[in-house]
């Protein structure tokens, strides 16, 4: 009964989305105020009904209703309750429903927070969101119905959730990632509304900025969490794999980052208009492309859902309508728009243009690397694969000029900047970053490694520059204490995000250079020494989990001089229903290094294969991501995004 109610609710949501996609948009052309006013309540209603549908599916999972096919395939009565609930988004159908619910949530949120927008704009934005909703709700309802029944012959037990997904990371990783993906639909809708209206003044950019920041914030958190989860769960200490699906989330992130910066130019200076609009369309288009790649089975990936060409065709048609349609609108409207503002070659505008060039080149690298194997094969040239070395090398080269530019950019004024006043502060930054980098190398007693030194230099350059820039900015307010209160939140946000980037570069370079690993055969009592740590295998015993068995290993870690560091507990689980082996790595994390142990196969002679890693600075990678997200959050809280625009008040009057 409850699942049927869920399906009914989803059907209602579809009806609301269709009205939302038609009425306000038509009303916006005939200046029919009543038609525009229905947009907001329709958006809320659509969200409420998708939420009901989502809750209905969650209810079925929570109560082990194996008469629902999706529950039977992805859950079992042995799962703890919180994993039963996360199993809701463990399958294609369920995750699609979550996607739909989140898209409706963003739509309702735009309606809720759009008091500052002119009614016309509000109606158009919500209308476009409604059109996107139609596609996804219809896809969920007709192509991947999560409420399908197994009646009359239903199983008494479900086939369990994929053990990889039985982890705390699974509880929040997909929701955050989807919040990010789908959030770019708002920037997209803003861009389309502006294209329809043909007005590209700086106001649309100011409205779009907080929404873009919010989506970017969620996407950053989602990607970081996914990376950390893979590190901890896959048992071989990697944190980024250039897997097609990771790439699919990385591309909208890169374009979203470019968009945030380009929006700043459009808002403050009224230039880069056609460019910014294209990025806004691009970020969401790449989210859609990602959804297509994951759900259609055109690429091989650990993340893929079961492939079904029919679903793929539906999504591809949807992509053609949404992306193709928006690019057509873009081409037909944008060519007549010209920017008036002038700027010199050495100016903030050009710095941010550089930022965009590098970010877009990076996107192109990822896009080519991900899709080239597909294109190559479809051209009949045979199968190839593009892996880590290609991406790592390209990003290595791209990152050097990007980081150098990033250190300089915030110092440069809009319109034009004389080089002379910047020479002194930049020289200071350069000296400081040399000292920091060489000091760190000396402290870790390793002067030789090129990559680590380069990473430290670039990281210090970006970080020191960001700190000094904000210090100098604060002093301009008279006194430091006055400055702290007066400086805009968005400026703090930028500084923190840039420091986050610096922290991440350092983490990546140090981890890549100094990580050590060993595969060893160990009996109980055996010791292995790695990077100054001694690991002693103390015990291995059988495990008895609720839905898994397996083995657990206990290890003590000491420094070479004998001081006790920590105790580690690594598991190798065998999930009984799905018959899958999972490693639960033991990790001892510190800011300066991770100790990482994973338990492998039992070997003849009462011994075990054990893999030991010491990974310096690996935490810095995720810490950097967290700082970037924090920066976005602080920028989001900037007061000026909550001020009403004067023409909005006029429209309401």
């Amino acid at each position: 009964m409850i699942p049927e109610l869920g399906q009914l609710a989803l059907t209602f949501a579809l009806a609301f989305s269709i009205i939302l996609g038609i009425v306000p948009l038509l009303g916006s052309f005939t200046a029919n105020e009543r038609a525009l006013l229905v947009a907001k309540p329709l958006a809320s209603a659509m969200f409420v009904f998708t939420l009901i549908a989502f809750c209905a599916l969650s209810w079925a999972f929570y109560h082990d209703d194996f008469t629902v096919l999706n529950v039977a395939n992805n859950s079992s009565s042995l799962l703890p309750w919180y994993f039963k609930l996360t199993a809701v988004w463990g399958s294609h159908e369920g995750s699609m429903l979550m996607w739909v619910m989140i898209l409706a949530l963003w739509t309702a949120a735009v309606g809720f927070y759009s008091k500052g927008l002119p009614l016309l704009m509000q109606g158009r934005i919500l209308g476009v969101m409604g059109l996107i909703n139609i596609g996804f709700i219809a896809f969920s309802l007709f192509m991947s119905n999560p409420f399908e029944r197994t009646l009359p012959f239903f199983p008494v037990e479900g086939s369990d959730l994929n053990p990889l997904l039985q982890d705390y990371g699974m509880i929040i990783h997909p929701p955050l990632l989807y919040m990010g993906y789908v959030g770019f639909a708002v920037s997209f809708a803003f861009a389309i509304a502006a294209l329809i209206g043909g007005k590209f003044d700086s106001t649309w950019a100011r409205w779009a900025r907080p929404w873009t920041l919010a989506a970017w914030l969620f996407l950053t958190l989602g990607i970081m969490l996914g990376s950390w989860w893979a590190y901890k769960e896959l048992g071989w200490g990697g944190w980024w794999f250039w897997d097609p699906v990771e790439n699919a989330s990385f591309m909208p992130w890169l374009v979203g980052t470019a968009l945030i910066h380009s929006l700043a130019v459009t808002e403050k200076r009224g230039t880069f208009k056609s460019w910014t609009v294209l990025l806004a369309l691009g970020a969401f288009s790449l989210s859609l492309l990602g959804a297509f790649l994951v759900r259609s089975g055109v690429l091989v990936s650990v993340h893929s859902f079961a492939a079904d060409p029919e679903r793929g065709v539906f999504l591809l048609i949807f992509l053609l309508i949404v992306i193709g349609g928006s690019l057509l609108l873009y081409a037909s409207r944008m060519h007549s728009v010209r920017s008036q503002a002038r700027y010199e070659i050495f100016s903030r505008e050009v710095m941010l243009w550089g930022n965009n060039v590098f970010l877009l080149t990076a996107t192109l690298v990822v896009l080519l690397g991900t899709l080239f194997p597909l294109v190559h094969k479809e051209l009949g040239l045979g199968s190839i694969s593009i892996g880590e070395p290609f991406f790592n090398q390209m990003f290595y080269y791209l990152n050097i000029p990007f980081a150098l530019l990033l250190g300089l950019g915030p110092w440069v004024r809009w319109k034009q900047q004389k080089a002379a006043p910047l020479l002194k502060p930049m020289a200071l930054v350069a000296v400081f970053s040399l000292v920091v980098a060489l000091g760190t190398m000396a402290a870790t007693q390793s002067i030789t490694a090129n990559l680590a030194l380069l990473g430290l230099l670039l990281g210090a350059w970006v970080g020191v520059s960001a700190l000094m820039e904000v210090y100098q900015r604060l002093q301009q307010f008279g006194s430091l204490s006055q400055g702290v209160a007066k400086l805009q939140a968005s400026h703090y946000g930028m500084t923190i995000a840039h420091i986050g980037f610096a922290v991440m570069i350092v983490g990546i370079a140090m981890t890549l250079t100094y990580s050590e690993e060993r595969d060893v055969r160990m009996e109980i009592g055996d010791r292995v020494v790695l990077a100054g740590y001694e690991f002693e295998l103390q015990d291995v015993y059988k495990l008895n989990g609720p839905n898994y068995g397996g083995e657990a290993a206990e290890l003590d870690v000491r420094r070479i001089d004998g001081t006790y560091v920590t105790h580690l507990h690594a598991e190798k689980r065998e999930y009984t229903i799905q018959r899958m082996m999972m490693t639960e790595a033991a990790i001892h994390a510190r800011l300066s290094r991770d100790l990482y142990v994973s338990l492998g196969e039992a070997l003849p002679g009462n011994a075990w294969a054990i893999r030991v890693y010491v990974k310096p600075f690996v935490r810095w990678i995720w810490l950097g991501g967290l700082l970037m997200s924090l920066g976005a959050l602080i920028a989001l809280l900037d007061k000026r995004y909550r001020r009403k625009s004067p023409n909005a008040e006029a429209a309401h009057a």
Partner: protein
Amino acid sequence: MRKVLFYVPLVLFLGLSLFLLSGLFSDPRERDAVMVGKPLPAFSLPDLMNPAQTWTPDALKGQPFLLNVWGVWCPTCNAELGYMTQLRNEQGVRIIGLYYVLPEDPMFGQVFNLPVLQAEVATKLQQFGDPYQFNILDQQRRLSLDLGVSGAPEHFIVDAEGIVRAHHIGDINPQVWRTKLAAVYQQFAGGSQP
């Protein structure tokens, strides 16, 4: 001119979607047989059971054959031995084994030991059937790598001139043989087989 520029993103996207469409209807896991139509790569490898004997591509020429990459460690390979034996006995298919030695890890006390391996192979062949004219020992896996082998079992049909004519990944069963390989084999065997 400026107007045309704004259509570039649309054109690029439409081009990409063509590939996405055709990608939908092909299996990304399927590998094209890059070896097909090319001669066997050069090699000089010992016989598994009689290491004094060395095999080269020239020594295999004269009659088409089915080259089977396998190992006793691979259950699917063992399972197909029965049907391949039947192929040999009933249709006279010439089958040559390319024995794939798993990389051994000295750290876990594994060392390559030919007599032990020969004994294991003999036991398996006795148990499941022996379809092979002989087995080539690819201890360094160099030939398998050159052939683009991604796992075992894999099969190549090689004609009398030593040219690879078909590549099949996975086991051979009656259906695979009938639908995919029999025609190729018979074409190059001159159609003389029943």
